[in-house]
């Protein structure tokens, strides 16, 4: 299992999402021409939380929000032990000329975002694409990709894991983010 270190407490978690929602409204106004797109599997909860908060700030209808699956666009297909199982893409709008905000939980190497940009272009040509992440594991990038909206930046080792825990998962407790150090014997 390894040892866990609390990176974002439940209270900080709420505040961070609130702050990201406010930053998005600051930048995108009424969201008439913007859309949030959560990256499957773990970005969609972050996107849904931001959508609800933005709706609470603006009133009226929630902003456009979709889920994007990137499985078939990954660059590590056949470099993994198992084939990657696809998840659902739910986009009931085209992204043509929209200002798209891609949303993920943790930004690490940047390869997921590279694949997401490819997957996104199959749904049209967005006006702009921005990136919002809950946790940015900076200095670990393998591609020139940077987020515009960041919940928390952390410095971490490759061997460590950053885990976002959601309250709705069974027996999970409250929303929080943990940094997990590997057991020394695991190498």
């Amino acid at each position, binding site marked *: 299992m390894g040892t866990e270190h609390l990176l974002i407490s439940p209270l900080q978690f709420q505040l961070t999402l609130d702050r990201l929602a406010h930053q998005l409204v600051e930048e995108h106004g009424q969201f008439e021409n913007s859309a949030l797109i959560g990256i499957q599997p773990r970005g969609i909860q972050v996107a849904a939380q931001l959508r609800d908060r933005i709706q609470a700030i603006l009133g009226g209808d929630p902003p456009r929000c979709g889920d994007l*699956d990137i*499985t*078939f*666009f990954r660059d590590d*297909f*056949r*470099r993994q032990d*198992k*084939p*990657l*199982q*696809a*998840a*659902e*893409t739910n986009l009931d709008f085209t992204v043509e000329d929209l200002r798209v905000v891609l949303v993920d939980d943790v930004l690490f190497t940047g390869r997921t975002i590279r694949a997401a940009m*490819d997957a996104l*272009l*199959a*749904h*049209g040509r967005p006006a702009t694409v921005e990136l919002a992440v809950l946790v940015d594991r900076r200095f670990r990038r393998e591609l020139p990709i940077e987020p515009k909206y960041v919940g928390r930046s952390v410095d971490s080792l490759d061997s460590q894991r950053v885990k976002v825990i959601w309250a709705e998962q069974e027996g999970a407790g409250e929303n929080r983010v943990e940094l997990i150090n590997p057991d020394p014997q695991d190498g």
Partner: protein
Amino acid sequence: MAEFSSRHLLGIRGLQRSDIEAVFQNAREFKAVITRPIKKVPSLRDLTVANLFFENSTRTRLSFELAEKRLSADVVNFSAASSSVKKGETLADTVNNILAMKVDMVVMRHPHPGAPHYLAEKIGVPIINAGDGTHEHPTQALLDSFTLTEKLGSLEGKKVCIFGDIRHSRVALSNVLCLKLLGAEVMVCGPATLIPKHFGSLGVQVGHDVDEALAWCDVANVLRIQLERQGTEVPYFPSLEEYHAGFGITQARLDKLSHRPVILHPGPMNRGVEIASDVADGDDAVILDQVENGVAVRMAVLYLLAGRLGGSED
């Protein structure tokens, strides 16, 4: 999670229920992909697939080729009519010559039952059986069942009757095995001359009365009468008209029922023989859905088998 238990897809025999569920799960996502404006994903862009057709086929080959192209694979086509098979080369030699050109996967149709199984022992790349004689046609069975799950949900306890020429059909055996793995009850129905005796041993009911079978089933899978394979010395039935009168699926027969079975046909149809035109074009027929789903299901099979190739150890 979803992993295919086999390196090849030689038949439905040898597959597990989880394999079929993995195919369906991916096929659903691929179906969404191929209805987008950009119908292509890059998953197989570094692979080359050879379609080896030692027997004529139009729709299966087209469906496989589209599936491969929509996964961004490179595709080479080979058909026996234009080949060195006619010059006396053995199957293993023909295929090894093609593999020497660095092909990563093989899709094969062959007139002889067991040809892909034989080849699987001889060569080192995954093989997908696109029909071997009158034996199996696994991707057809997968797409038939996939189409049914779209229409009916789970197939557990559903009653499916396969009508027509069971003897010459590779679709029949694959369908029986696939449907039973998914928990459906299966019947085969047709003239006694067109149902091999051993079929009962597969755990299916055997019927010869179309009206009774239609009353029993939730799904009617109507197979093609293979005019080119009918007996040359002794015919299996007196005439096409008589076959239609005795065993054809007609609207008049369906109108007598208290329920409306889903109608499948793997194509190509002989309208007015095994199926009447108004049934084939009716609201309960899912024949064109089968064709559409064929591409998505074949993409899923190619994707799952390619996933087992491994990038690093090859």
